[in-house]
C-alpha cells in the first residue's frame, strides 16, 4: 500500500467536505478497495471512511413504504434486518461472499464499485430502487453505466438506497466456481406495474434488464411463460468459467428458477 491519510467523519456533510480533496476516496467496508490498495492499483491521497456515519447505517421503512438501506450498511445487517419486509433482498445479501465479507462489505461500496458480477446491482435494478446520494436521487435505470462505471460523480456518496417492495420477488444466482460472485444471477420482481428482470454476471456491459422476459412474465408470471424465449450469446461474457453461449443459457435457466421460487 502507498501511504495515505485516513479520516473517519461522523456526518455526511463532513464526509463530503473531506472528499473534496483531490484524489480522496470514500471507504466502505474496504472489501474491494483495500485489496486493490495492497496491489498498488490505487493511490488515493486520503481514505474517508463512511462507516462511522450513523445516518448511513441500518435498515428502515420510508414514509412511502419503501425499504431504506443506509449506504454504509453491511450485507449481514441487510440479511438480518430486511428479512421480514423484503426476504428476496435479504436472501441475496445473505449469500454474498463469506461471513467476514458480509460483516464488512457495504451496499454503497458494492453499488459504487459496480462489479459486473456483483449481486446487489441485480436487486437494485430488478426492484427499480432509487440511489440517494449526498446531492441527488438517481433511479436505478440511470445508475449503472457498464463495467465498474456508474452515474456517480467523483466524491459523491451513496447515502441510502430505497427499495420499493414488490409483491413477489426472488434472486437466483449461479456461482462462479472460484470467486463465488455471480456467474449469472437473475433478480425477478413482480409489482402492480408489471415484472422487472435484472441480470448480473452475464453481460459484457454489466447488469441489464431482460425486456422480453419482463413482457412475457408481466402477462403470465410463470416459468413456462419464458420457456419459448431464447437469449442471444452476443455481448455475453466469455472467460475461463463459461462461454457466451453458456451464460446466455444461464440467463434463461436462472430467470425460470427465480420465477419458480418468487
Amino acid at each position, binding site marked *: 500500500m*502507498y501511504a495515505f491519510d485516513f479520516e473517519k467523519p461522523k456526518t455526511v456533510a463532513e464526509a463530503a467536505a473531506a472528499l473534496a480533496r483531490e484524489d480522496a476516496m470514500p471507504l466502505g467496508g474496504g472489501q474491494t478497495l483495500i485489496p486493490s490498495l495492497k496491489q*498498488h492499483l490505487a493511490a488515493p491521497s486520503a481514505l474517508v471512511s463512511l462507516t462511522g456515519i450513523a445516518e448511513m447505517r441500518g435498515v428502515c421503512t420510508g414514509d412511502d413504504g419503501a425499504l431504506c438501506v443506509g449506504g454504509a450498511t453491511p450485507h449481514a445487517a441487510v440479511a438480518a434486518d430486511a428479512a421480514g419486509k423484503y426476504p428476496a433482498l435479504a436472501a441475496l445479501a445473505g449469500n454474498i461472499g463469506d461471513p467476514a465479507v458480509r460483516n464488512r462489505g457495504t451496499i454503497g461500496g458494492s453499488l459504487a464499485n459496480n462489479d459486473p458480477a456483483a449481486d446487489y446491482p441485480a436487486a437494485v435494478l430488478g426492484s427499480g430502487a432509487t440511489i440517494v446520494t449526498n446531492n441527488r436521487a438517481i433511479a436505478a435505470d440511470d445508475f449503472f453505466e457498464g463495467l465498474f462505471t456508474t452515474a456517480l460523480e467523483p466524491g459523491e456518496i451513496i447515502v441510502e438506497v430505497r427499495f420499493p417492495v414488490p409483491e413477489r420477488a426472488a434472486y437466483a444466482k449461479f456461482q462462479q*466456481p*472460484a*470467486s463465488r460472485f455471480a456467474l449469472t444471477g437473475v433478480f425477478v420482481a413482480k409489482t402492480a406495474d408489471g415484472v422487472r428482470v435484472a441480470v448480473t454476471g452475464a453481460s459484457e456491459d454489466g447488469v441489464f434488464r431482460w425486456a422480453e422476459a419482463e413482457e412475457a412474465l408481466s402477462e403470465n408470471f410463470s416459468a413456462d411463460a419464458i420457456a419459448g424465449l431464447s437469449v442471444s450469446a452476443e455481448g455475453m461474457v466469455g472467460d475461463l*468459467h*463459461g462461454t457466451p453461449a453458456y451464460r446466455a*443459457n*444461464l440467463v434463461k435457466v436462472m430467470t425460470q428458477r427465480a420465477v419458480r421460487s418468487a
Partner: protein
Amino acid sequence: MPKDHGIGASVKRREDVRFLMGLGKYTDDMAIAGQAHAVFVRSQVAHGRINKIDASDAAAMPGVLCVLTGEDFKDVGGNPTGWLINSRDGTPMREPKRPALAHGKVRHVGDAYAVVIAETYAQAKEAAEAIVADIEELPAIVDMAAAVADTSNRVHDEIPDNLCYDWGWIEDNRAAVDEAIRNAPHVTTLELVNNRLVPNAMEPRASIGEYFPGTGDYKLTTTSQNPHLTRLLIAAFVMGIPENKLTVVAPDVGGGFGSKIYHYGEEAVVLTAARKLGRPVRWTAERSESFLSDAHGRDHVTKIELACEKDGTFIAFRTETMANVGAYLSNFATVTPTFLHGTLMAGPYKVPNVYVNVKTVFTNTAPVDAYRGAGRPEATYSLERVIDKMCRELGLDPFEVRRKNFITTDMFPYTTPVGLAYDTGDYHATLDKAMEMADVAGFEARRAASAAKGKLRGMGLSTWIEACGIAPSHLVGILGSRVGLYDAATVRVNATGNISVMTGAHSHGQGHETVFAQIVADKLGVPESSVEIVHGDTSKIPFGMGSYGSRSLAVCGSAVTKAIDKIVAKGKKIAAHMLEAAEEDIAFENGSFTVAGTDKAKSFGEIAFSAYVPHNYPLETLEPGLEETAFYDPANFTYPAGAYICEVEVDAETGKVDVAAFHCADDFGNIMNPMVVEGQVHGGVGQGIGQALCENTVYDENGQLLSGSYMDYAMPRADDVPFYNVDYSCQTPCTHNPLGAKGCGEAGAIGSPPAVVNAVIDALQRGGHTHVTHIDMPVSPARVWAAIQG
C-alpha cells in the same frame, strides 16, 4: 473397546493444540533483531531477453539496503535436479542451468530477476517498482505440441526442440505392445488432459537468511518439507559452502503437498543478501507470488490405448504422454512423469504387457514438479478412465471387469510388466468392501430419487494402486536418482527417563508428533506424554530425506523402530548386569526388564538412570548413555491400494455436478492411528475432487497466468465435498518393513479423480446423453453443459 493409546489408537493430534490456538511458530512468525525485508522483482512477460536492469533509482530510495540481480549469482551454481533420465535412444536428458535469479533471459511470468532489500517491507516493495528492466519480449512457448515442433523458438537457447527427454518404459516391451494392440479383438483409445494444479498450501513460502560473521555460519529458516535436502542443495551445489556451516530450520510449516520439497532460488538469495549486509534478511511470498512461482503439479496430455478381449480381459496398455515441466527443472521434475508414473501403468491388474512413452517438454510456464500423488494420480486417472470407456464400448460391467483382471492374492509377490514387484495386496477385498459401503444394489432407487428432483445421478469406480514409501536407494540409483532415499531417527533416552526422538521426516500437517510418539511409547512401554518428537532442524536431527511420497511412516517410522530395537537391546545388557542374570534371560515387556521366570525386574526408568549415572554398570564392555540412531533403507516400495466409489448428481440445465457420496475402501497395511489416517484420506480425496471438478491452471497464448488468484482459481470448499465414507479394515501388512505400514498420505488424491469423472460420464450416459464419452478435468459446470449440447 478401541485402544486409547499406543499403536492403533485414535490419539488426538497433540500438535493441533498449538495450531488451533494460534501458538504455532511459522517462518513468518519469527522476528529477528536487525532484520531487513526482501521483495522480489518478477517477470511480467513469459519469455524475454534481459538487455539491461537499471536499479539506480531503486537503490537510492528510502530505506533501500541493496539490490541484487541475476548478475550477482552468475558465478555460483544452479539449482540442480535430483534425477537423471535417459531418453529412449540412450542419450541423457537436457538439463539447463536454473539460476537463483534469472540471468540473460526470463522464462516465465513470475520468474524473479532482481531482489530489493530494505529496512521495511513497504520500502522494499516501492523500490521494487522503481527498477527499470529493459526486457525484450520473445514469443511465448506455452503449448507443448507447438514447443517440440518449432525448433526456432526455444525456452533455453541450447535446447532446440524444447524437449527434456523422450523416455520409453519399458523399451523392450514396445514392439510386443504394438503387436498386441494391432491384433487385439478390441482397442479403446482415450485422449485426455491431466490438468495443471497450483498446490496452494495455506502458508505461502517464506525464508529468513542469517549470517554470523564471528563463525562464518549461515542459518536458513524456511518452509521446507526436507531441511537436509535443502541444506545439501544449497551448500554443495548452489552456494558452494561447507554443509557444516549451514543450518536449515523448517519450523511449523503450513502444508506443502510437494511444493515445499524443493529448494527455490529465494532461499539462496536471502542467505547471500544476509552475508552481504551482515543482517538477517526475510521474505514471505504474497499469494500471487505463490501462484506464479511455486512448483505446480500434473499437466499431462495423454493418449492411452487399452487392448482387450471382447470379455474385457486386458491384453496390453500403451500410453503416450507429453508432460509439461515448465521453464526450469525443479528438483524432482524429471522423475515425476517417468518413474513415478510409467511404473504404475499396470495398475492392480494382471495385464500381460504395458508400454509408456513420456516426452517431457520445456515451456514458458512455472516449473512443474511432484504434487500430492506425483505421477501416480496421472497413471491412475489414465487407466481408470480408459477402462471405464472400454466397459461402455463393450457393454461390460465395470465392477466385473476389474474383478476379472485383478492380480489375485495367490500371485504375490508379483512383478508387473513395468518393473515393480508388488509384495502383497488383496484388490478383491477392497472392491468388495467399497461395493458394500456404497450399497451398489441400491443405486437404482437413489437414481430414481435424483431423477424426481430433476437431477441425473451416476456412479463411478476407481480401483487404484500406488508405489510409495520411497524408496530403495540401490534401485533408485540404477534408475538415475542422484540421492539415496533412506531415512533416519535418533532415539535419545534422557537420564530422567523421558525420551527425545529426532526424525529425518518432517511434519507439515501430517501429525508425526503424535503418531511417532505413539509408536515409541508403545514399543518402550512408557506414556506418550514422555516422548517428544523433534524434527525440522538440521542442527538437531540426523540426516534424513524428509517427507513426501507417503514415506514418513513406512521409511522414517521404520528407522524409529530400528533405533528403539537398539535401545531395548542395550537396555537388556544393562538390566542383565544390574539383575545379575544372563542377557539372554532378560525379557522386556510393558516398560519393564525382567529375568524370565523370576520376579526380578528393573523399570525402564531405572535402566535409563543407570545408563547416565553408571555407578553399577558394565563399563568395561558397555558405553554409558542410552541413545541410538538408525538409518533405514527400504527393501522395496510399499503398495497401498484401494477401491473408490463416487456418486454424483448432475444438473443438466446448468452442468453443475454435486458429489452426492464418496466411499473409500483402502488397504494401507497396519494402521498406527485411525483418526490420522482418516484425516489424510479426507484431505486427499478433497484435493482429488478439487482437481476433478474445480481446479485449473490456465495460461493464455502469451504465457500469462489467467487463473492467478482465488478469483479465478477454484479451490474446493466444504460444500463441494460430501461426507466421506472411509474404511481401512482390509489390511495386508507390508511384508518388508517392521511396522507393516504402507502409507496413506497421497491415496485420496490418487484414487479419487477418475471415480468422480467416471461418475459424471455415467450420469450423463444414463440420462440419455450417450454421445458424451469423456470430459476433461476440471469437469466444470460450463464444460458439462457444453458436452451435453454436443
